[in-house]
Structure formats: structure tokens, C-alpha cells
């Protein structure tokens, strides 16, 4: 018995006295290794009588377990101390800046294109596109601009040099040629919007020689001017993210629509912002009308069977009204300061479900 007690107290003292892991391991081997002291005692069990063994067996096993537990505990304590020491030496000055990453942004015009597409997409429209360089027929004649008519001159058209006596090509003055191309390729029902670059020879505080338009076209069997009104009021409310908007439709003239209308909305100014849907002033925001029967005929659609409406609006100005850019010119200057300020974060994807802006 005294053997057991002596061995245990000696072993525990040695374990506690081990101040690093290798010394601890040496103690473990000396006590619990194959030739260790505790292991040696365990071997004596074989030579004992059954009675002795019944008495000594549990005692020796308990000794072995206690020594082993003491080794484990010491090991954990030593490892902990080692980790603390290591951590104490591992310090970073985390006030230093991380690697600089450039921050990108999307152009407001392109963002507004997507907003408009989201709204009209929700009303069943799809997006159509066409070339910027057009022939006279698609840009004017098919749209019921009689040749030589002064209405053509109001468009300040850019021309190319005529090739081999052909009528000179033009830069499209509106995205209406896309309507023509769509009607010629596709059978009604048609609901499209046509966003894109358009060009007019005019450059001052409120005009740029290139700007952006979205036009829309609906051709079905029972679409009347009340739908035009409803659709565009729905659009304006959604785009300006207001619950209500007071709108006014006025007769106007466009060669390609009959009857034609311009749409005004009420607004007021508050500092630099323009609040749509409030106030007492009217602002024109788009042109529209029922598609002229001549245009339908020009595209091979029977105006006695199908009818519908078309509309067009300037995107640059629409962006200005919503987001407050004071001037058109910087839109086209690729100025980083302007784009960072008025641009949009890349993950901001306009949608009806997730919000436009």
C-alpha cells in the first residue's frame, strides 16, 4: 500500500515539476511507459493469488488512471501557457489601412434605362433595339413624315454623305425606327419599349447632340387612348415613386400619331429638388398618341383590325428630374467625380419587387 502512495506522490510531484512538454513526456514515460514504474507494478498483478489480485487490481488501476489524468492536466496547462506566450508576441497595428480598392459606379442614364424597363416590363413590355444609323425611310417616311415637310426640319437631323446617289443615311432622331422595325418583323399583339441613343444637331444649355430616349409601342385589337393615359400615369407614378400624380394631356402634333398628346405633370420645386405630384406648376414630360393609320399601313398592319398607342420621352431629362443633376453636359464627359457623385452602386438593380432606387 505504502508503495502505491509513495509512487503516486512522487509521480504527481514530478508531473507538477515538469515545466515544458518534453520534460512532462519524460515523466509520463518513466511512470506509465512500458518500462515505467506504474506499469511495473501493474505487471506484478500476474504473479499474485486471486485474492491478492482482487484487492490490488482496482487499487493499481486507480493509481494508473490518476497519474495519467495528472499528466493530461499538466499537458493542457503547459499548452495553454505556450499559446498565451505565442499570442502575446503576435500583435498587429490594425489601424493601418487595408489594400485600397477602387470603387466603381453605374451611370445614371443607364440606371434609369433599367428602371424604366422594370416598370414597363411589369406591364408586359419587352425591350427592343435597333441601329443608330438609319435610312430616311425608317426614320421619317415610314413614320408619316412627308418628304420635304417642315416637320422633318424640326428634327435637326444629322446626315451622312450620300453614297452613289442614294438618299443620305441619317443618325436616328428618335428611337421610332425601332417601332417600325418591330412592326415589320413581328405580328401583334405588340408591347415594346425602345431605349437608346438618339441624335439631333443642337447643342446648348438644354440640348446635347446625342441624348437618350425610351419610346413605347402597344399594338393590339382594343387599345384606345384611355389606355395610353392609364399606362403613362401608371408609369409616372412608379418612376417617381409617388402614390399619386396629377397629370394633364394636351393635344399636340406628331406626324406618326393621330390623335397626338403631350403629357404634363404637376410639380413644385423645393430647394434643388423637384417634387413630382405636388404643387401648382405644370411640366411637360413626354409625347404620345394613337399610332397613325398610315404608319400601321406602312408596316403591313391593317388599321381596321389593330390599333394602339406610342409614346416617347427623354431619359436624360427624366434622370435629371428624379436625381437632380443640374446640367446635361457632364453626362457625356466621363468625369470620375461626377460619376462617383451621381452614379449608382453596382448591386443596385432596379426591380418592381426590390424597389427602383
Amino acid at each position, binding site marked *: 500500500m505504502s508503495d502505491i502512495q509513495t509512487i503516486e506522490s512522487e509521480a504527481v510531484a514530478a508531473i507538477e515539476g515538469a515545466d515544458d512538454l518534453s520534460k512532462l513526456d519524460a515523466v509520463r514515460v518513466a511512470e506509465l511507459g512500458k518500462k515505467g514504474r506504474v506499469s511495473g507494478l501493474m505487471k506484478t498483478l500476474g504473479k499474485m493469488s486471486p485474492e491478492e489480485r482482487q484487492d490490488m487490481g482496482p487499487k493499481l488501476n486507480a493509481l494508473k488512471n490518476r497519474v495519467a489524468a495528472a499528466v493530461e492536466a499538466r499537458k493542457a496547462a503547459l499548452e495553454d501557457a505556450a499559446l498565451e506566450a505565442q499570442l502575446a508576441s503576435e500583435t498587429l497595428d490594425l489601424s493601418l489601412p487595408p489594400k485600397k480598392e477602387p470603387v466603381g459606379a453605374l451611370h445614371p442614364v443607364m440606371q434609369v434605362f433599367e428602371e424604366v424597363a422594370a416598370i414597363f416590363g411589369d406591364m408586359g413590355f419587352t425591350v427592343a433595339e435597333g441601329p443608330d444609323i438609319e435610312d430616311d425611310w425608317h426614320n421619317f417616311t415610314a413614320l408619316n413624315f412627308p418628304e420635304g415637310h417642315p416637320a422633318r426640319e424640326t428634327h435637326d437631323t444629322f446626315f451622312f454623305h450620300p453614297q452613289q446617289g442614294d438618299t443620305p443615311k441619317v443618325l436616328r432622331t428618335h428611337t421610332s425606327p425601332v417601332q417600325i422595325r418591330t412592326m415589320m418583323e413581328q405580328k401583334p399583339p405588340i408591347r415594346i419599349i425602345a431605349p437608346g441613343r438618339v441624335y439631333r444637331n443642337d447643342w446648348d444649355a438644354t440640348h446635347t447632340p446625342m441624348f437618350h430616349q425610351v419610346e413605347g409601342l402597344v399594338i393590339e385589337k382594343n387599345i384606345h387612348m384611355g389606355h395610353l393615359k*392609364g399606362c403613362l400615369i401608371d408609369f409616372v407614378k412608379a418612376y417617381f415613386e409617388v402614390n399619386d400624380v396629377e397629370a394633364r394631356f394636351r393635344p399636340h402634333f406628331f406626324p406618326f400619331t393621330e390623335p397626338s398628346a403631350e403629357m404634363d405633370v404637376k410639380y413644385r420645386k423645393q430647394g434643388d429638388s423637384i417634387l413630382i405630384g405636388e404643387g401648382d406648376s405644370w411640366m411637360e414630360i413626354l409625347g404620345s398618341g394613337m399610332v397613325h393609320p398610315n404608319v400601321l399601313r406602312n408596316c403591313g398592319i391593317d388599321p381596321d383590325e389593330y390599333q394602339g398607342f406610342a409614346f416617347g420621352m427623354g431619359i436624360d431629362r427624366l434622370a435629371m428630374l428624379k436625381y437632380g443633376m443640374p446640367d446635361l453636359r457632364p453626362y*457625356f464627359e*466621363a468625369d470620375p467625380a461626377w460619376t462617383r457623385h451621381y452614379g449608382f452602386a453596382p448591386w443596385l438593380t432596379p426591380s418592381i419587387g426590390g424597389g427602383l432606387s
Partner: protein
Amino acid sequence: MKFSLSWLKDYLATSADLDEILELMLKAGLEVEHVENPAEKLAAFSVCKVKTAEPHPDADKLRVCTVGTIDGDKQIVCGAPNARAGMTAIYAPLGAYIPGLDFSLDKKPRKIRGVESQGMMCSTKELEAGEDHDGIADLEDDLPLGMAAAEALGVDDPVIDFEVTPNRPDWLGVKGIARDLAAAGAGGFLDEEVRKVSGSFDCPVGIGLKAPDVCPIFAGAYIRGVENGASPDWLQARLRAVGIAPKSLLVDVTNYVSLDRARPLHAYDADKLQGQVVARMGREGETLLALDGKTYDITPDMCVIADDSGVIGLGGVMGGESTAVSDETTNVFIESAWFDPLTTARTGRTTGIISDARYRFERGVDPKSCVRGVHMALRLIIDNGGGKSSKVKVAGEAPVAKPKVEFYKQDVARLTGLDVKPATMRKMLKTLGFDIEDIGETWLLTVPSWRFDVDQSADIVEEIARLEGYDKLPTTSLPPLEGGRRVVTTRLQHRVRTARRTLASRGFLEAVTWSFMPKPHAELFGGGDEALTVANPVASELNQMRPSILGNLASAAQNAFNMGERDVRLFEAGPVYLGDGPKDQRSFVTALVKASDPRSWKGGEPYDSFAIKADLFAVLSALGQAPDRFQVDAPRLDHWHPGKAACLKLGPKVTVAHFGALHPRVLKALDVEGPIYAFELNLNALPYMKARATKTKAVLNKADRTPVRRDLAFVVADTVAAGDIVKSAKGADKGLISEISVFDVYQGKGIADGHKSIAIEVTLQPSGETLKDEEIDAVMSRIVKSVGKATGGELRS
């Protein structure tokens, strides 16, 4: 087009006030641009009576007056020579703003040479109501004290300016405006006929029509012994109100008829005419000194008025100097003809002349107004300038009237959703001048001769809808489209969106630059084709359609640098133009970087060709285009650096992208400091993946998929492309090798001159059983063989 309210009331019996008239104009489609009411600025002024006018004790030229005013008797010191007791004048109270002097009177009485003055009496010029500044306004004595000055001076007459849309030239005459407003409900239309002048002799000037297609009718008359003095006050006032300076009776009358009836006329000094007046086409070599003092070359597609002396006018555009009327004119020949709109428009464009006559003729003048117009002018001239008129001579006939139009009443509801009673429609159309014939459900309409915009039923629908008022249109949301939802964007648009968002998230700023660029710049990028040169550019530096977006972005980046930016990353998703055909436009995504070397406490890699390659590959990956499906080759366009840029091909013919450094020579020509790294990606050249029949994805096989990795290093000649090693290595076992990546490139000690060592890591991806060592060794030796065959490379020992 400007007109005054009082003028309008010549033809409109109405009790509507200004605001109601403006409201009705808006409703009928006459878009008001500006309203000026002279009464507003004269609101403070009123009629006063001068009771006494005594000399100023200390100044010879001043008088001290006692004036009866709306504010009671006032003492006013006045410097006007005509100030006298008993006169009726205009009183300005203290504090009033004097428009003609652009200053306000003091609010408190002021002493003038020691005598207090409690207001002012004004001249018509000071009130901007006339030109008279010799003294204060000296008015009729029967005007009551306190009457508003605007009324007393006859300027209480708002002037409205509105936009005449090209379809309605009849609105270029006040009478036409009145007709539309009457139809819109403003009151009764006063369709007074012109009182005809019965001439006492035959017109001595002969009229010849030698271009009947262009000038089919020409009415004329001769006045003998007219005095071409000033026109009457009322006529001058009307012209002045709409911004036209009165000149002389003859000129003013032709202007007046043009504004009143949209009927242009021309007055010739008959004594300067030589022989017959002929409307004919021009002849090569002819010239005209026109009334604007400029000489114009005549071409055979212009319609001219000529006499024996040659061309004396451009038909429907402008008269000539040689036969112009002057103050000395006593015998006059009046022309009232009709000219073809297209010819007039063309002549106007060719000569660049902008005149009221051209503006009206090119939009369309009522052909039936020729004779009426002459009579109206004769009446005004003879009544105010005396003389004797000839009979009116008419050569030719008015062009054939437009065919009648069938109007289907149900079209109103069908196209607009409006419910308008037939009786209402009938009244509207009648007032507009249409004749209506009932033929069953349909109406057969005779279109008035002044309307050129009505050809079919829909045109009548517009008339009904605007006169009924668009505010009465129903508001109906679009019904859902049958056949379910469709994808809103096309595949190409989807690509554009994905590419834009990828680049923005990698730190690029989106630009939108002109589709134009300077032609010399376009030539640097392989463009400059004559077919893509704008014939009438807005500015000389915007005269060529761009073959590449790079030039615009590079210039913008340089500008930003000049403004102090140090790291400019721009991109634009937009068009480039290869030709002028409808299929020659390409949708490009172009990114460009002008960076300074990074300054970081951790150090950092400068932006280079590999950085831009990473950005390009990120875009390609986002578009679902595995970058390794493309081949890298030498650049195919001259604006790229020959050694530090490359193209990305898909097979031998299709170039999808270029990336790397821009050519220093190009940058120099653009005045941009290099290096500039960029890529241009042609979205149209990227193939579309075949749409799969189902959205279900293949099952993921995870059975023993632990990859095996081995390194190999090859020594190759330094002209060998690393990409070829990778490609040939991969080709050794396409099934098993999932990835080859280059992790080291070495030249120097231990490697022979002209050679380099390229180390690759090979990843083998077993799909089922664990690979045995022999299998792995076999693949490795196949790789060594394959690389050796393709590049001459040997394993580095």
C-alpha cells in the same frame, strides 16, 4: 405666332377673359409659350388732370403743377415742355416702377430744387406704351380721372405667343385661331367676308403662269395714285403689339393680311415693273438681289417671279430689291398667288431665307384665299392711302380640292374611349368649316380649303377628341397581356447588364461618351470611313462615327488625370460602327485604366496587362464564357501595343476581344500619357450557349473526388507561349486533367540562354475510384510527351 386679344375678338364673339382663352387654347392644342399683358406693368398708373402749372421759382425749365389724381390733389414738379393747366395726363404715384426708365420713384416725396414733388407725370415712352418722349402724355380730355393708364392709352391688350404645329398653318392667321377657339367653346366665330373692291379699270399688268404645277393661281391688282405714307394708328399698334415694326402703308398692309388671314401678299412698285409679271421656274445663271440685301443664285428647281428685266422675286419666299415699294411709290401692283409647299420649302432651304411668306407657303396656304387676300389689301390701302384700284385679275385656277373624307362616328369611341354625341360632333365640325353629308352611319366630309392635315377618319377623331377635351378621356390601366410573362430584356441586353455590373463591382466607373469622335482619332482606331463621316457635324471634333470607344475613354482619363485623379478606371457599354448598314453596329464593352503606381505600406503590384486581363476574364466568366475556351494571339489591330497586348480568338476567324497596353504612338496622337491598359470586348461575337430543355441541373457526383496534384517544370525556348504549354498539357488527358496552372516562370542561373523554365501544377480529378500511382505516373508521362511535341519543351532536371 403672336396675336393680341383684341385682334382675336375681331373674329370671336366671346365673354371669356384672358385665363379662359388660355385654357381653351391649351385644350384645343395651341400650346401657349408666353403671355405679355402690358396692363400688368402699368397697374400703378392712372389718368390725372393738371389743375395749375406755375413756373418753378428756381428753375426756368421746371413747372410746379397741382394735379388732381386718384390719390387726391398732388403737387408735382414737372420738366416737360408741354405741361399746362387743364391737360389730361398719366400720373405715377410715389414708389411706382417706371418701366421705360427702369427705376422706381422714391417712396417719400422728394424736393426738386427746393420744391416738394409728390409723384410724376409720364411720357408714353416712359410707360413703354409708345415712342413719344417730347413731353408727358397729352390725352383726350374726356378720359375720366382715375382711369387705368393701360385702358386710357389703349394698351390694355394681352399679347399671346404660341407654338404653331406644322400641321396647322391656318393658325398662322388670327382668323384661323378664332375659328378653332370658337369650336372649342370660346364663343361665336365671326366669319365676316372681306368687302370687295370693285375696280374702275382693267389691271394693266399682265400675269403669266409658266410653272402651273408650282404656281397654279396668281391674282393681282393695280392701284394708281396711292400715297405710301404711314399706316393708320390702329394698324401700327396691332403690328407693334406682335413685335413687327411698322414701315409704310404698303408694307404694313401686306404684313397685316399675312397675320390676319395667313395669306402672304407681295406689293411691287408698278412703275419699276418691265412688261408682264410671270411665275416660272428659275434658270441657271440667274440671280436675285432680294429685299434682305443679299444676292441669291437661282436654280432651275426654284419658282421665281420674273418680268422682262429678269428675276424680280423668289415665289413665296422673298421679293426683289429692283421692284420694291418705297416712300415714293405711287402705283402699286399687288400679288396674291399660291406656291407649292415642297418647292417653297426647298427654295427656302437652298437659299437659307427665313421669311413669313416662306413659313406659310411651305406649310400650306389656303388656295382659295388668293382673291380674297387681294381685296382685303386693296380695301386697306385705298381707305388709308387713297388711289384708284383696277379690277382684280386672276390667272390660273386654285389647285384641285382634296377628296372628301369618310368619317366613321364609332371611330371616336374605338380610338379614344370617349363617348361624344353625334350632335356635338356635328357642331364642332361645322364650326371648323367642314361640310357634312350623311350617308348612313358614316359622314362624308368636305375638308375646308385651309386644312391640309385631314385625309381620313382618324384625323377627324383627333378633331373631336381635342375639342371635347383630353381631360374627358378615360384612364384605363393596360390589361395584362395574354400568354403569360415574357423575359423583358434580350440576351444581348442581359449581357450588357451583367458586364456593366461586373466592371462596376471591380472598381470601374461607367461612362457614356459621344458616338462621335474626331475623324483623325477615328483613323487611329481603324476607322475614318467616308460613309461614317457626319456631313453636318455639330462641331468639327464630333464628325466621325466611332470605330472604337477607346479614344473617347483615353481622352476622358487624361482629362481626369489633369484634374488630379490618380487612378482612373472607366468603362462604357455602347455602340461602335463598322459601316452605315443596319447590321454594321456592334455592342462593345470597353474598359480602360490609367493608373499611377500603387503607394501602399504593404507594397503592391502596379496595374498592367495581366491586371486588365483579369478584369476581362472576370467579365467573360460572369457572362458564362469560360475564359480558357478562347485562344490568346498577337493583336490584330494597330492601336494595341504589339508586345504587351493580345487578342482573344474563338477559332481562326472570330476575334472576341483585345486587351493589354495601348500603342504609344496612338497615345501620343491622342495627347494622352501612357501607359494605358484597356480591353475591348465585342459582345456580338460571343457565342450563346444552347438553351437547355430543362432547368434541372445534372446530379453532383461526389464519390471519391479528392483531386491529385503534381508539379512539373519544363524548359522551353523563350519564344514559346506559356499558353501553348498549358494547352498541350491539358490535351494529354482531357477527361482526367481538370486544371493546369502556371505557378512559376524562371530565367537565369541553371537555365540555358534563350530559354526559360515554366512550372505548372497539374490537377487530376478522378470521377470514381481512387487513382493508383501507376495511373498517375502514366498521365504525367503523357503530359511530358505532349508538351515536348507541341513546344519542344523538356522536363527541367
